[in-house]
């Protein structure tokens, strides 16, 4: 096999050329759409939907099929909305609710993450509380409100209790399914490199489970938010202050349909806003680095 150096060099150059050619042919190509087109593509359809909904609403109101106290004009709702913006109460109302939801969600993450790890990794815990955890996810957490009011009275504890029961199962289940979906070969990679349990979890298992965990967090946030609204609508008291739920309840109590609808719109805006500003960019980044979402 002792080829003269010159031949070796030529052979090596040929091999290098073949490898380079093959790489050029086989590398996945990515075409990027320009930013303005992406922005246009992302905003035009939802704006169009909004316009259609408002036009249809206006037409329905103009047809006078429903009495004014059931279906207000879009303009009346906008006026009502403008009122709370002008007197500044919109900020305190929104902040009361968002603050609770954020605190509740963060506590839920802190509880659900170790819980999910235990369920995913300890067989006994999985069989013992896995089904319960899945079942809790389908139990509307509003069902806990009456019990919580009896236990904790009309206090913040009631509200946080309901929020936690709403979001902890989603986050924990998300983490469990994230871990379950990690390809076994990645665990074997750690094994053959002699990774200990802790290093393997930190460097391989948890990053691999991140997409599922994030999906769980996203759902957990949605559940926290709707549980909070249910709790705020049912459990109202002066010491709890006025959040979005209480504001909606107030409108309903005085037959102010415009107030009710503006409260619903505000709840929706917060929900969509958090999704668009927090979870969507986060999820997109995580999926893109893993090649799981087409780069747009």
């Amino acid at each position, binding site marked *: *096999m002792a080829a003269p150096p010159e031949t070796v060099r030529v052979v090596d150059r040929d*091999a*290098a050329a073949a*490898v380079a050619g093959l*790489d050029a042919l086989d590398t996945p190509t990515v075409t990027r759409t320009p930013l303005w087109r992406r922005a246009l593509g992302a905003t035009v359809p939802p704006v169009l939907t909004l316009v259609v909904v408002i036009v249809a609403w206006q037409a329905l109101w103009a047809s006078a099929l429903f009495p004014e106290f059931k279906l207000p004009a879009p303009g009346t709702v906008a006026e009502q909305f403008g009122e709370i913006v002008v007197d500044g109460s919109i900020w305190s109302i929104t902040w009361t609710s968002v603050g609770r939801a954020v605190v509740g969600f963060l506590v839920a993450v802190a509880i659900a993450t170790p819980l999910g790890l235990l369920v995913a990794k300890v067989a006994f815990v999985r069989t013992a509380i896995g089904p319960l955890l899945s079942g809790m996810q389908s139990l509307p957490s509003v069902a806990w409100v009456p019990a919580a009011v009896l236990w904790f009275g009309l206090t913040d504890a009631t509200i946080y209790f309901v929020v936690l029961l709403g979001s902890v199962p989603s986050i924990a289940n998300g983490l469990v399914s994230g871990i379950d979906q990690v390809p076994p*070969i990645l665990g*074997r990679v750690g094994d053959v490199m002699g990774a200990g349990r802790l290093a393997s979890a930190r*460097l391989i298992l948890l990053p691999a489970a991140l997409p599922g965990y994030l999906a769980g967090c996203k759902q957990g946030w949605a559940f926290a938010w709707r549980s909070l609204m249910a709790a705020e609508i049912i459990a109202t008291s002066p010491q709890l202050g006025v959040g979005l739920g209480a504001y909606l309840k107030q409108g309903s109590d005085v037959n102010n349909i415009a107030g009710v609808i503006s409260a619903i719109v505000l709840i929706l805006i917060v929900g969509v806003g958090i999704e668009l500003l927090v979870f969507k960019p986060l999820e997109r980044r995580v999926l893109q680095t893993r*090649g799981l979402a087409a780069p747009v």
Partner: protein
Amino acid sequence: MTATLDRTQVAPTRPAAQLTGVAKVFGTGAGAVTALTGVDLRVEPGEFVCLLGASGCGKTTLLNLLAGLDRPTRGTVDVATDRPAVMFQEPALLPWLTAVRNVELPLRLAGVGRSNRRGTANELLELVRLDGQARKRPHELSGGMRQRVALARALAATTVDTTSGDAEKGGRLMLMDEPFAALDAITRDVLQGELERVWRATGTAVVFVTHDVREAVRLGQRVVLLSSRPGTVVREWDLTGTADRRALTGEITDHLREVISTHGRAA
């Protein structure tokens, strides 16, 4: 390219790996399955050995024993390095890490400092002709490129050895479990050539499992034919100095067919 093999050197060096009378039985009693029986195999430092066998030849069990992930039921397994590198059929790269950070992984697990491991990883990527792709993630690479990143990662793993001493070139061992089986024919052909080049350049001992006789004959200095259920060594061919590899391919294929045929008769 100075690493030519000197097989005349007969000093009693410790083999890169040695299996003596190895048997592996899974389960006990009536349900016990014998995966391997009476396996004797010696891999010299820097040697390239191909294990050839059909399904059920116990190759995964054998590699697990060599990798230290499992213990034999009978016999002894002696491996010079305490951490042989393993390469799978899939690249099995971590999809969230760039190519260079994937190569760094075994070094990171071994506690090698950041700048040292980055240097080693970049050198190895250059060796597999992937310099310039270091910052790409696996999904941005082709199948052949991913498998070369996996090769570089396995080579990085061979540089790690906590026992040192034997960690000199002679002790290095790479276990390859059909690493090219999932690639298209052109890529496989090119990568076989690349593996040969890299093996010569690094002097690592290689145990290469394959179903493909031609692949075994092309790459191996020695081809070991395994029977199936249970797996045991049927025959070996020493290929060093073999001029007519094509004729040998035919001969080995005949033997493999014979081994497979006995299972049809037994059933």
